[in-house]
């Protein structure tokens, strides 16, 4: 079951909302559809589901409606039309008291400018949700301390937020949301106000925490690199509409339209693309028990100078070159065993990012071998493939025929 389901969600500001929704329903751009109406559409026909335990990123520029969207997910804003279901509960028809209960128990939020209460200590801020829930003081303290421990701020517990740096303040904001113990975390541009270096650090921390806690996170950002780094899946918003939902690789390699393509044009694709998505099928793979004659024939037929050799259970052992095959033939050995070398080839795992492949490619005499988790050979990356993969994936050109795609971060939406 999905943790959160959003269906045909609209948010119209201004009057004559019904008319606005009717005009927008057939998919026309909002400027055109709403011409002459005293209304602005912030979110138009949003549909998506968020799976338990995933980081779902909503990405868009300012004015794309992403902040409005996230505020409808916990009822801070009332949708004009459509449905939001949190853990099976329809949120749009809840009475205020029931809505507050849902916020206390199911959904907490982290804010762009931290939104800490300046007159309360770090500990009191971290325990705010528990105070609202009416927990006794001792338990509040204990759980707030636990949350501060998770973000590494226990020694600042009795300071005021003012004493902390921006990055630390946002960790308090994160601790406050974690202390609430809700399954769903809404993060509204949570790291956007931080310096790039601090931002990276706190992103790492979030990913570490997430690996441990497995929360369902809806993360809003305008930063594509951040979206790609954090998101299991990404929804791209433009002018109030969600234009594409997919994994980072899907969006990068198969943008739904020109807008998304332009958006992803200047992303550092070497960090997103993985070895698995650029590798090729190895041309010559032989079992270690094959004889040198078989190897020689294989080399002749494929016009290459190297054979990749696998052992029992298809485990990768190394390579044998032309010269060694000839030597084995001369010495009259029945197997390639003894001639296999790992010196001329580097190995990487399937999820190695392309950025980390360059060194291996440079140092590896033969195409780099890509292994799966059981050391089986699943592909190779010749230098030329690596280069063309980078060059090919520019938005102006078709990408699909040049780069073989293998999704690794999740199934398509």
């Amino acid at each position, binding site marked *: 079951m999905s943790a959160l389901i959003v269906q045909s969600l609209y948010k119209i500001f201004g009057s004559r909302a019904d008319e606005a929704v009717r005009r927008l329903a057939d998919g026309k751009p909002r400027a055109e559809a709403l011409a002459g109406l005293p209304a602005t559409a912030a979110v138009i026909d949003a549909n998506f589901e968020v799976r338990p335990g995933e980081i779902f990123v909503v990405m868009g520029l300012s004015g794309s409606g992403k902040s409005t969207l996230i505020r409808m997910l916990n009822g801070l804003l009332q949708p004009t039309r459509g449905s939001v279901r949190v853990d099976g509960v329809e949120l749009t028809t809840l009475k205020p008291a029931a809505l507050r209960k849902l916020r206390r128990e199911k959904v907490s939020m982290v*804010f762009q400018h931290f*939104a800490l209460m300046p007159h309360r200590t770090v500990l009191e801020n971290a325990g705010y949700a528990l105070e609202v829930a009416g927990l006794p003081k001792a338990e509040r303290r204990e759980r707030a301390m636990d949350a501060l421990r998770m973000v590494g701020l226990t020694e600042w517990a009795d300071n005021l937020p003012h004493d902390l740096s921006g990055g630390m303040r946002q960790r308090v904001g994160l601790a406050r949301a974690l202390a609430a113990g809700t399954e769903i975390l809404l993060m509204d541009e949570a790291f956007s106000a931080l310096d790039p270096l601090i931002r990276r650090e706190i992103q790492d921390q979030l990913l570490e925490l997430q690996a441990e806690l497995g929360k369902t996170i809806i993360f809003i950002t305008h930063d594509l690199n951040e979206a790609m780094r954090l998101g299991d899946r990404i929804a791209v918003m433009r002018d109030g509409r969600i234009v594409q939902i997919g994994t980072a690789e899907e969006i990068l390699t198969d943008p739904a339209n020109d807008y998304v393509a332009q958006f992803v044009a200047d992303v550092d694709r070497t960090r997103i693309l993985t070895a698995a998505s650029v590798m090729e099928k190895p041309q010559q793979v032989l079992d270690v028990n094959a004889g040198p004659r078989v190897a020689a024939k294989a080399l002749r037929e494929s016009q290459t100078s190297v054979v990749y050799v696998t052992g029992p259970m298809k485990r990768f052992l190394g390579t044998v070159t032309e010269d060694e095959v000839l030597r084995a033939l001369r010495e009259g050995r029945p197997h390639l065993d003894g001639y296999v070398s790992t010196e001329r080839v580097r190995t990487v795992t399937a999820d190695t990012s392309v950025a980390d492949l360059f060194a291996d490619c440079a140092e590896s005499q033969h195409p780099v071998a890509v292994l799966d988790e059981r050391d089986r050979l699943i592909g190779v990356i010749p230098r030329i493939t690596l280069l063309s993969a980078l060059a090919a994936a520019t938005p102006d050109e078709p990408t699909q025929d040049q780069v073989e795609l293998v999704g690794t971060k999740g199934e398509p939406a």
Partner: protein
Amino acid sequence: MSLTQSPLDSWLPRVPLGAWTESAVDWATGALGPFFDGVAAVVEALVRPLNDLLTGVPAVVVVLVLAGLGWWLRGWKFALGTAVGLGLVAGMPYWEETMSTLAQVLVASTLALLMAIPLGVLVAENKRASAVARPVLDLMQTMPAFVYLIPAIFFFGIGTVPGVLATLVFSMPPGVRLTELGLRQVDKEIVQAAESFGAPPWMVLLRTKLPLALPTIMTGVNQVIMLALSMVVIAGMVGAGGLGDVIMFALSQVEVGSGFEGGIAVVILAVVLDRLTDSAGDRFPSARAQRLARQAA
């Protein structure tokens, strides 16, 4: 109503606003008589004991208490200034009048704040109330201060009570306005944060909005007290007593000396009250935290 009224204007209807007001006040004096008597009794019961207390104890005690308060709130320099200033007043012939002015100011501004702050909260939370309150507050603030004295005399006769009540009405608007402003200025994201964790409206108001609005509300308190002080002098015209009487008498007799003495007493009282209330706001942790946050930004 000029004598040279153009014939072009002759079609304009006459609006006898003055006559209407008079008949309204007439009616109120009759119909609401018991109510006004009750109000008068309450105000009297508040002002008299305070007045008796302040004029009853030796001047030295009052000076030392206020200087001590100044020390606690602002430090020794201000305490010294307070002691010298009030000592000067005590050395002049109008100490008793000064104390009764102080009593009236304290009662009028306390009552004004008791109404202004809740009203400010209502106005900040409710757009419709705000739309109604705004023109009323504009009227209260721009109406010449003397005008309040006329209905006050009608309802309460001559003396301290009409003075205190006219002062109350005159000094209330900044209390309402600054409370509203303070609440509206609270960071929206912080309010949303409180709401996003499921806090009910009363909790958001009491534990988040009000503490964060406090510095602005305290500015309102300060303004209310300052306006009360200025009005209480004018209230001398209706025989409210205190420094107002001194100054009115000096004015009618053209006595420069006693007029100046009364004026200086008002000034000293004003400065002491202003600085004391100004720094009182800083005693609250929320105000201090916000000041620190602003300095850092």
